[in-house]
């Protein structure tokens, strides 16, 4: 009788690996009080860039969104752009036109020609919005969460539609770090669990037994207490929220010899090392995931 006793937990453990995840499981809903329509001004000047603090000057003022673009904001865009013909539905995805990149034929480079590309998928069960054939809407509870499952083209298209652009990597970095010092995180030099939404940070949205780490409402880490969960105010020196953790953010640079687009900030699925301001990630521009979002920049 010893053998079954030993093997039962082992079988149970292995079966647990195949457990289905309820992607639409209820999620706590909180009003953070942070306005996702707010923009922050980043004045021209020098800042310390990268892990090794290289002085860099950005010689112009620019504005950048105080938060990531939310699901509500993006679904409104989708409805509007679909109605005016800027976007259309093609199969299981919303697509839009991109004018293409200069191709250099470098090793591993994939040519991005002028064509229509995916903005968002319509058939991904992890999507935080619904589409009934005519109307887009945020899933309940996700209205003020960052828009995810959006490709680089989808992020680029949103910002452009409203007269803005994706921030360059340097613009993003300066907005996260501020002009004063060499801090590794937008709020300072140390990271605690209540600073940001990262892997195993034990925030109210995390369910490590099933759904894993999930996104949090934009601006959640603003020093408020939500149902007994106290956050630390983790805004950047310019007042930007979620510049570390929650979701990776697409940036706008298109580099010679590569089709990859760069992401910054780390996400709910990252260990804290990837939340450091200088850490870069990249992916093909058609990539989308529940851990990737964006915010826009514009000229003042």
């Amino acid at each position, binding site marked *: 009788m010893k053998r079954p006793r030993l093997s039962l937990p082992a079988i149970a*453990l*292995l079966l*647990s*690996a*195949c*457990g*289905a*995840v309820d*992607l639409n499981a209820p999620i706590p809903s909180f009003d953070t009080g942070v306005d996702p329509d707010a923009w922050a001004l980043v004045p021209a000047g020098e800042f310390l860039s990268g*892990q*090794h*603090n290289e002085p860099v000057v950005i010689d112009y003022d620019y504005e950048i969104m105080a938060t990531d673009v939310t699901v509500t904001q993006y679904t409104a865009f989708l409805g509007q752009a679909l109605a005016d013909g800027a976007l259309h539905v093609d199969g299981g995805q919303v697509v839009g036109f991109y004018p293409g990149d200069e191709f250099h034929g*470098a*090793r*591993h*480079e*994939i040519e991005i020609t002028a064509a229509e590309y995916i903005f968002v998928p319509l058939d991904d*069960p*992890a999507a935080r919005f619904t589409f009934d054939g005519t109307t887009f809407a945020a899933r309940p509870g996700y209205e003020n969460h960052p828009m995810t499952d959006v490709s680089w083209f989808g992020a680029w298209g949103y910002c452009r539609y409203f007269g803005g652009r994706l921030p360059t990597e340097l613009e993003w970095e300066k907005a996260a770090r501020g002009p004063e010092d*060499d801090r*590794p*995180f937008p709020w300072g*030099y140390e*990271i605690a669990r209540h600073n940001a939404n990262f*892997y*195993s940070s034990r925030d109210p949205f995390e*369910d*490590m*037994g*099933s*759904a*894993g780490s999930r996104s949090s409402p934009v601006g959640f880490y603003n020093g408020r207490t939500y149902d007994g969960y106290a956050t630390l105010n983790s805004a950047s020196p310019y007042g930007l929220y979620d510049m570390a953790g929650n979701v*990776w953010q697409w940036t706008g640079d298109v580099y010679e*010899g*590569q089709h*990859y687009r760069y*992401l910054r900030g780390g996400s709910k*699925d*990252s*260990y804290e*090392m*990837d939340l*450091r301001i200088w850490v*870069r*990630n*990249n*992916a*093909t521009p058609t*990539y989308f*995931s*529940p*851990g*990737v979002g964006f915010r826009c920049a514009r000229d003042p």
Partner: protein
Amino acid sequence: MPFFKQRLNFLFRSTRGLILVAIAMIAMETAIFGLLSGPMAEFGVRDVVVRLLRMDLVQAEREGRIIILYHSIAMAVVAIETYMVTGLLRMKEFYRRSVRLLVTIGYWMAMIFGMGFAYWGHNWALHGLYIAGLTLVFFAGVLLTIGLWPWGKDYRQPDPAYAHTKNGVDMERVAFFATALTTVISALFGAVPGSYFGNGFETFLAENIIRYPEKTTLEYSVIGHLHIMLALIAIMITLIVGRWLNFKGLLHKIAMPLIILGTIVLNLGVWGVVTPLEPVAHMIIYVGATPAMLGALMLVIFGWDKLIREGVAGIDRPTVLQKLGALVRDPLRFGPLWQMVFMNFTVSGVGIFMAVRLDEIFRMWPAREERIELTGHWHVLSAIIATIILLYYGDMIGLKGRVRRLYGWAIILFSDLAFASITVFEMKRLFVSEAAQQPLVNTVMLLTDLGLAMLLVVLAMVMFWRLADLFRRKGRWAEELGQDDLALEMKG
């Protein structure tokens, strides 16, 4: 005082003692610094350890810390292989003693001062002493290479059962020599960019720049260095296992030229990444890796055939089951060869699959996903080498009977459980989406942690036993003090 003198004599002058000390040093470093990452960080253990030990962990210096950590462990592993080589192969006593002295002082300095510099603030005196330690290990390598010179008359191979040239040059010794020589050159290949990037903490981890289309020569040099050093440590342990198991016969005669050729071509390919040959360097590396791996396959065939034949000796017509039983009867001799085979599933197989489908699959994923595969597969290779060392060490210290079987199988099964789980974790995106991955991640991480934790428990038990043994007047240590020549204990 004789108490300490005798013990220190054992620990620092005998082959087994030196190996024991190096294993203990690695075990302690792994136990302490393993608490700073992975699940230990998630559980909050890291924060406690950092506070208790008053570590100074600056966020911007993480990459530099990790590089010093890898190097300090690698130096101890290199020292262990050096002790084994100098215990297994004939060489002049001057070289044997000098090499051991230099490599021992070197890896101790690298470990102690390197970790002190990396984790407890920037005391540049410690950094200098760390570099001095690495330098001593380098010079030990130079002396070892000279000591292994295979063309001297004293080292001719008179036995026709072993690979040799018409003039009697021992091909196996040539293989050891070629591996030692290319290791020394490849160490320089890392030292040059290291001196540049190590200026302060302006350094990087290779896996973080893998997708950049333009890399500098020094960046290529770092990437080449880390790959070739691990490959050479793996080749050296293959040769060591071959000598331990008394590899000979036809397969030996085929394997040795293959390993020599493979080692040299592999190195030329890696060094080529900083030359105009860079566009074809990978092809040269594949050309070199193939014969080297074929040579290892010959060793596996030889070793398993030998185990089976020894195990069924006296049985007229052994059945398949009897042969299988004979094969796995002694896990300490079966294990190293099995780990070499298992490596193909968890390291080489993954690497080849990635190379073949890089643009179609892996480069469609974010760079951070690709990083998991890259770091995962070389961590597994490093750990496989460590398990092979531990299996050989178990035989070296004379484990017998039930303890031998328990020790051997625990290392094989727990390590392979961990390595297989990590491989599933690395490749998970092939069969599970990001949104639905958590149950799978939980299970494989639990199995990985279980495997590694049990492996460390087994290692800790052996270390405590050896520590307690040192307090006995005529313990195992006293026996081992007089058994310094590993070559006398070749199997068969």
